[in-house]
């Protein structure tokens, strides 16, 4: 299999980037997309060129570190999939594949396809926790949590923090990421005590990081590898309105 990769190259945040094309031969159907890039990087080394910087770690769709725009879609052509789970069988022989980094004001480029997503960590830092210290917990079965509530919390908690929701949104909104985390904790009895501060602080932090506002286009849930529903955003917005109006 032979393809042309058209890849965004940028030395560092202060230099101007550009697309460069690389013809890569000797690929097979069952190679993953990232393995094809690995293959290209090995060729670049042997040609005495600098390798392309891109992110990955677990390569099984759970760590959330990988993520690039492929042919204009976050994580490539399939819905609900991470870049590392994409395989070359999804492309045609001879195809030109355009690869770009996430583009959002809150995710500045570090190098080539690598962006800085620490804004997500700061949103977490602003309130995505339950303030109990190690060693203070009551017996686990002391507070029953009905299956439906536990399942709903789990649906929201499944977020891997990859940033595809932001990258694919025309407003670069982090509403799906933020609402999923808020709803995970606020729906559980343990999270109730700090529910209103959490909602207040995390939505505030989302704004100051420079993420845009949500206009309900719904693209985020299509690209989300975990299929997290935009109902989370509706729930967050409604709770926020209620809090503002009723205090």
């Amino acid at each position, binding site marked *: 299999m032979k393809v042309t990769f058209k890849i965004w190259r940028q*030395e560092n945040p202060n230099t101007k980037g550009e697309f460069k094309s690389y013809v890569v031969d000797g690929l*097979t159907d069952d*190679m*993953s997309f990232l*393995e094809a890039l*690995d*293959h290209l*990087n*090995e060729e670049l*080394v*042997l040609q*005495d*060129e*600098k*390798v392309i*910087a891109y*992110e*990955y*770690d677990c*390569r*099984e769709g*759970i*760590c959330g570190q990988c993520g690039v725009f492929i042919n204009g879609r976050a994580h490539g052509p399939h819905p609900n999939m991470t870049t590392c*789970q994409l*395989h070359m*069988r999804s492309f045609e022989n001879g195809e030109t594949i355009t690869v770009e980094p996430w583009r959002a004001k809150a995710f500045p480029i*570090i*190098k080539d396809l690598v962006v800085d997503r*620490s804004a997500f*960590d700061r949103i*977490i*830092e*602003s309130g*995505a*926790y*339950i303030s*109990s*210290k*190690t*060693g*203070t*917990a*009551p017996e*686990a*079965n002391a507070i*029953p*949590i*009905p*299956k439906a509530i*536990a*399942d709903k*919390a*789990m649906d929201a*908690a*499944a977020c*891997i*923090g990859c940033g595809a929701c932001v990258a694919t949104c025309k407003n670069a909104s982090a509403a799906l990421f933020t609402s999923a985390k808020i709803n*995970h904790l606020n729906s*559980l009895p*343990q999270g109730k005590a700090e529910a209103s501060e959490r909602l207040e602080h995390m939505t505030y932090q989302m704004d100051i990081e420079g993420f845009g506002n949500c206009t309900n286009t719904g693209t985020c849930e299509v690209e989300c590898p975990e299929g997290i529903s935009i109902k989370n955003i509706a729930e967050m917005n409604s709770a926020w309105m209620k809090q503002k109006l009723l205090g």
Partner: protein
Amino acid sequence: MKSQLDPKVPVGPIEKKWQNYQLKSQLINPANKKKLNVIVVGSGLSGAGAAATLAELGYDVKCFCYQDSARRAHSVAAQGGINAAKNYQHDGDSVYRMFYDTLKGGDFRSREANTYRLAELSAPLIDHFVQQGVPFAREYGGTLVNRSFGGVQVQRTFYARGQTGQQLLLAAYSQLYKMIHAKKVTMYPRSEMMDLVVIDGKAKGIIVRNLVTGKLERYAADAVILATGGYSRVFRLSTLAIGCNGSAIWKAHKKGAFFAAPSFTQIHPTALPQSSEAQSKLTLMSESLRNDGRIWVPKQKNDTRVPKDIPEEERDYYLERRYPSFGNLAPRDIASRAAKERIDAGYGIGRLKNAVYLDFKHAIEKFGLDIIKDRYGNLFNMYKKITGIDAYKTPMLISPAAHFSMGGLWVDYELMTTIPGLYAVGECNFSDHGANRLGANSLLQASVDGYFILPNTINNYLADEIKSEQPTTEHQEFENTEHEVQKHVDKILSINGTQTVDHFHRELGKIMWQECAMSRNKKGLKKAITQIKQLNKDFWTDVKVTGNQNEMNTELEKAYRLADFIELGILMCEDALEREESCGAHFREEYQTKDGEALRMDEDYSYVSAWEYQDGDFKLHKEQLEFEFVQPTVRSYK
């Protein structure tokens, strides 16, 4: 030298040891804790748990990870669950039973007191995670659900769908960020530990490479905690994340920390098979699938029929046949070896004939598709994304893959290595699993080490450190160590040979997988040592790394990690060669029973091998294992 291997096991009956230890341990008053600096390397379950808890206690903590965020650490990928002796299922479980299962699962090659403590602290750990908001699976009435894992006959595994590791890690990450917000922890993501700084025999700091700027940085502390995970990437193809490496513990080893049981590596029976040379990783399919899936191969060699055309009587459910009382839930080492036996005998399936079937047909018939989807839906989805195959319709193809490192830095009961002030927690230590780890005990060990044990044992050391002078990064040892690191990096960049880093990693992986994985023998191990030594020479004369040090350079990162893996590979083979018995995952072909089971040699080998680094050579020390409470027996799952 023997005094260096004092495991410091407290006196008293086994169920009182931890309590006795805590009663006698020194305390530090809160005002003094603030003055003590602790470095934590790694932000997975053990690292984040330790960093958050130490900060809650009042210490000044710095936490480092190589990923872009603490949330990426590979604890995230553990799927199936976490064990705890809660006895919620009323099926006869207890702390003692869990302790016994773990000790037996490890083939009696772990320290009794540590293993007991692991079981003892499992129940409060579940309380802790529930309080932190982990959405564990629940019954309709709201109580917690359990399932079974390999090597046990009770149900003590707690889980959050197939993403238990992710949910526990995110809880630890949240707690860590709570303490970052409180300004008690400083987080250094995209930072890699390059070496340990030892001053007057004590761990006093680290040299770090900033992975964005490429610059070397110095950090001083009163104690250093390594929480850097496992090293199975030495096989290249493994279930681990691509960035997982053994460099931090290897550098510590070269600075004097003994390395225990380096060759004890768990080969997981249910990963996706390798499909090509270019493959970079083997994806794990959770052991929980063996609760309902049945493993088989055709009875006929080279059978090319599709599974649905092979009638029931022509299928060999070899685990059920060989181990009727545990069946498909035989422990991992046994299940892997049994798969290898069938594959080697010519019954393997798939394009490369390197796999066996994991079949859900009967479970779907019995429980219905919806129940199976509810239990394992995300795993079936993952299987489909990677292979393009719908496993609800046709069996999964699975194959053994390198997974967990039971070996690691030698630690005493306090989790301190042989370097005073240097601790190792989680997978990077050798502690509780002996020669084979039971499923769902990994998340458990990482968590109890980080949350419960270390924060209670580190006082004992730090209480005395208050009196000594605070280290500064101006010290000559920091200067010397940084200089050594700089020389090492310069050398790698200057070779400018003809082969890529990945080329050498593939070669190392092939040797290790061939000679030091599921089955080992004297001749093969000796050959492997010679081959790896040659590979080491070739690496240092012919590797090619482009780019510079002072920039983000992923190729350089791979190169210095691989340089350490090559040296570690030699030690793993030496260790496997020295141990002339079979135990757990360490299967020496020369030592087996008539039916091909592991043959332990308790009289000669009932010890933990702890290796000291001596100028490129390794010297063996032995920690004799004393079994006070349990009599080692032949480990049978038949």
